[in-house]
């Protein structure tokens, strides 16, 4: 697979092994700027491992990952943090930091030698919170927020990091129905407003089909299908990754929804 210059992220033939078990097998794909790229696959298919390789928390065995043409393995942690921001699945912390302190941490890569934020950084972080309608949360303790609010705070932190790529690891899997859509709408809005490239692991194919313009479908560490959403979002490809009969039905307005085949 050749890397096109237009790709902001290119994963080329990577493997990852944990002890004897191969978790990722010859994974290759690329993402263009502005994409919302969904990673779909059952539990244990390697989605989170792949995200960790892209963020170089884990080092892939073979192949190469390029970010804006740079070989990821040659970049320092600070350089990677300048390019990639991460929103973890659910972050619980031991010490009661405030939301503003949490958001400020996102700017660490820009804070110079000793890593201490200045007055401008504090007002910038505050601005990000206000932009997400979270200004009133600034002095609240992160530990005391609800799951949805925590996720918003982590997204604010990722925005304050000012990276061009945002990786989100199952950001909505523990949220209630309403908040799943609130967070996804937010991700869609900020991706467009800030021209962010988003790679997001998801469990719900309905959400993936609705919000992602590019999909990568994994099963047992291997990419089964990938491409633009309209080319790969069909029952056969979903059946291949979830190992079950699946049907796609349509509402009166033409919206697709995915269902297990046996449900009427």
């Amino acid at each position, binding site marked *: 697979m050749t890397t096109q210059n237009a790709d902001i992220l290119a994963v080329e033939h990577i493997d990852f092994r944990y002890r004897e078990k191969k978790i990722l097998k010859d994974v290759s794909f690329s993402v263009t700027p502005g994409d919302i790229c969904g990673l779909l696959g059952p539990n244990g298919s390697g989605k989170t491992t792949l995200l*960790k390789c892209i*963020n*170089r*928390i884990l080092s892939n065995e073979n192949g190469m990952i390029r970010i804006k043409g740079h070989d990821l393995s040659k970049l*320092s*942690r*600070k350089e*990677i*943090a*300048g390019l*990639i*921001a*991460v929103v*973890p699945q659910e*972050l619980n*912390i*031991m*010490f*009661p*930091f*405030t939301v503003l*302190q*949490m958001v400020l*941490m*996102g700017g*660490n*890569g820009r*804070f110079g030698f*000793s*890593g*201490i*934020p200045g007055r401008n950084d504090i007002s910038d972080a505050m601005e990000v919170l206000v932009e997400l309608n979270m200004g009133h949360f600034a002095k609240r*303790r992160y*530990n*005391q927020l609800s799951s949805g609010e925590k996720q918003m705070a982590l997204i604010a932190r990722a925005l304050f*990091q000012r990276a061009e790529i945002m990786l989100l690891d199952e950001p909505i899997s523990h949220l209630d129905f309403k908040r799943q859509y609130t967070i996804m709408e937010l991700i869609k809005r900020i991706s467009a407003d800030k021209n962010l490239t988003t790679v997001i692991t998801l469990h719900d194919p309905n959400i993936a089909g609705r919000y992602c313009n590019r999909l990568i479908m994994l099963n047992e560490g291997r990419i089964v299908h990938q491409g633009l959403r309209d080319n790969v979002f069909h029952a056969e490809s979903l059946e291949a990754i979830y190992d079950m009969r699946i049907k796609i039905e349509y509402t009166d307005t033409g919206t697709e929804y995915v269902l297990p085949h046996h449900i009427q």
Partner: protein
Amino acid sequence: MKKNSAFVIITILLILCIIFALTTGQYHIRLDTLWKVVSLKFSGKTPTDNLATPSMVLWSVRMPRVLMAVLAGAALSVGGVVFQGIMRNPLVSPSFLGVNHGAIFGASLSIIFFSKSAFSIESFAFFWAVAAVALVYLIGNRGVNTITTLVIAGVIVSTFFMAAGSFLKYIADPYEELPAIVYWTMGGLNNILWANVRRAFVIIGIGITVIYIFRWRLNLMAIGDEEAMSMGVNVNRSRIIYMLFATLIVAAGSSSCGIIMWVDLIVAHISRMVVGSDHDVLIPFAAILGAVFLLFTDTIVRSLPGGEIPISIITSFMGAPLLGYLLIKQNNEWKG
């Protein structure tokens, strides 16, 4: 409480505590006498006959002891905050990583096989305290998510040094060496000389300065390794820097004063309650509060009517119930 007012209050408390400590003791120095003796020293004049005794007591005995209490209190407390931050556990203290048992082993080694001189005991205790933590790091550092393995390595190394220390006590001469070891282990500032203060000042001064410079990044280390890495922190390098300088200052404090229990845990907890978790303010606040706490305790210990008792007895008596109370009080808040 507003953070600025907390700093003003704690700084005033430190000044009051220093004055209290300099005037109080078996030989009482009045406030006006203290002023005269200090003024004479700074103007370079020789004290008159009636000021000779208070001057001697102040400059030879009390001042080095007070300064050492300030230095050691700050060192133990900052060390506690740093280890709790990088271990992401508010109940961890440097002793979890073998600092104390390493120091006791070193002190015992010196007392039995080399020399009972303060310098020798201090050097051996310092070296073995640092060596114990280095060993913990070598065994326990396993890349990402290494905290659990570090704590387990701390238990292993502590147990090893405890056994080695017990063996040394077993073979020690029960009339001279054993009491010296036991007394050193209980901690105290009664033999502090200017030379101790100078050595401790250099090590603790450098250590606290480095930690102070990088204090903000401790916030990221306290969130989690993967989190810190995602935000651009070289976690392994940072952990080495924090562990190295925290160990150096704690070892410098412990090697001069013996093992003083609980100061790190108590001060770190109270500091977090007063100024919050942001290491930007937590580190300097804990340093000053630690100095106040140890200085006050030491002054009480040496002013007791029945004579001085080892300081760890008092810090443990104060610390254990206080920490129990704090845990019960804060439990619900942390759950939130």
